[in-house]
């Protein structure tokens, strides 16, 4: 399945695994890359030495390209930005802002840079500063989100820039993949479905919570503080939203979520922890290997597009 994204990244299928904090570590990244997609290591707020170690471990498991997602508001962003060059990483995706100040050094090192954007203006800005592609991520996604839906954002970004657009947010099967192509995307990025993959080093409780989730089970906390985050509903989201409605301060709200993702992913505390997930959790019903996930996506999407006939 050749698209501009597969040629740009040197991969077989235009499928990227999201750089989710705590979840996107080297076992998962290597498994997705071995399956023909692009795996990502999520640097999140981790120190540079952790990221270096992760990259080296991933290389032991795969000889295919993989990438690192750098969260730009991390206190370690400057150092991690250098580590990816030193370790010869091929692809960098970025979140939470604009990576302009690193662009020159990354391009010089031959790294393909793919910022995640949630608006047309930011996509245009990224193209101007030399991005190779953009991930247009709709509000259906898990974790930190923007306001536009994938359905609305992807075609507008595709019209606004001439670099390839990768759709993210709300995709977990071949129908979503085919729809993304229809909207103008040349690739897709998925998170939630890879969280429940066999290779993801995620606590069983977390995986089980996603598998059991229904369509209406996600909640957005933090709209009042300007940092909206999507997670599956539990004691934490309930308490958070109650406090938020009462006009609680940023500091007070922060206390509730501090370390919440780690609590859920590592310790399996899905009641008080933050079970970040996309809205599409309701569609994620079975556990598969990354290989099976990627193959299923490709076969379904390919069949739908080739056999597409919606009216007489």
């Amino acid at each position, binding site marked *: 399945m050749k698209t501009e994204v597969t040629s740009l990244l040197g991969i077989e299928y235009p499928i990227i695994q999201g750089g989710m904090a705590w979840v996107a570590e080297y076992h998962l990244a290597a498994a997705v890359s071995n399956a023909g997609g692009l795996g990502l290591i999520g640097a999140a707020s981790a120190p540079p030495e952790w990221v270096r170690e992760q990259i080296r471990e991933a290389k032991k498991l795969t000889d295919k390209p993989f990438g690192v997602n750098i969260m730009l508001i991390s206190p370690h962003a400057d150092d991690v930005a250098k580590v990816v060059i030193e370790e010869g990483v091929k692809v960098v995706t970025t979140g939470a*802002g*604009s990576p*302009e*100040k690193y662009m020159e050094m990354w391009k010089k090192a031959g790294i393909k840079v793919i910022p995640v954007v*949630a*608006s047309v*203006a*930011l996509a*245009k*800005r990224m193209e101007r500063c030399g991005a190779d592609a953009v991930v247009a991520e709709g509000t259906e996604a898990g974790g930190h989100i*923007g*306001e536009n839906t994938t359905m609305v954002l992807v075609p507008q970004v595709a019209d606004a820039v001439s670099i390839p657009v990768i759709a993210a947010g709300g995709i977990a099967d071949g129908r979503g993949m085919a729809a993304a192509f229809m909207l103008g995307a040349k690739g897709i990025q998925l998170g939630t479905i890879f969280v429940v993959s066999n290779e993801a080093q995620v606590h069983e409780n977390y995986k089980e919570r996603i598998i059991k989730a229904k369509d209406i089970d996600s909640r957005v906390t933090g709209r009042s503080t*300007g940092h909206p985050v999507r997670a599956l509903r539990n004691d934490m989201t309930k308490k958070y939203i109650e406090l938020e409605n009462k006009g609680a301060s940023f500091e007070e709200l922060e206390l509730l979520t501090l370390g919440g993702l780690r609590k859920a992913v590592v310790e399996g505390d899905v009641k008080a922890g933050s079970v970040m997930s996309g809205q599409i959790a309701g569609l994620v019903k079975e556990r598969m290997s990354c290989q099976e996930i990627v193959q299923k996506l490709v076969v379904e999407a390919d069949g739908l597009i080739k056999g597409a006939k919606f009216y007489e």
Partner: protein
Amino acid sequence: MLEKVKEIIVENLGVEEADVKPESNFKEDLGADSLDLFELVMALEEEYGVEIPTEDLEKIATVNDVIEYIESHK
């Protein structure tokens, strides 16, 4: 210049013109989030033919800051 900048702010942030004062803080007084700020910066760059790198965005908090920035970088 204040008038034109005000107009661009009103258009891009969807705020009332009367609320836009030289000392208005984009985040605190005008309720802009980071995406709104990128929207605004792109519009200002187009109008005044300047490029405002993201590093400099951190230094721009108020309407006055924007005007001073543009004047010194034109």
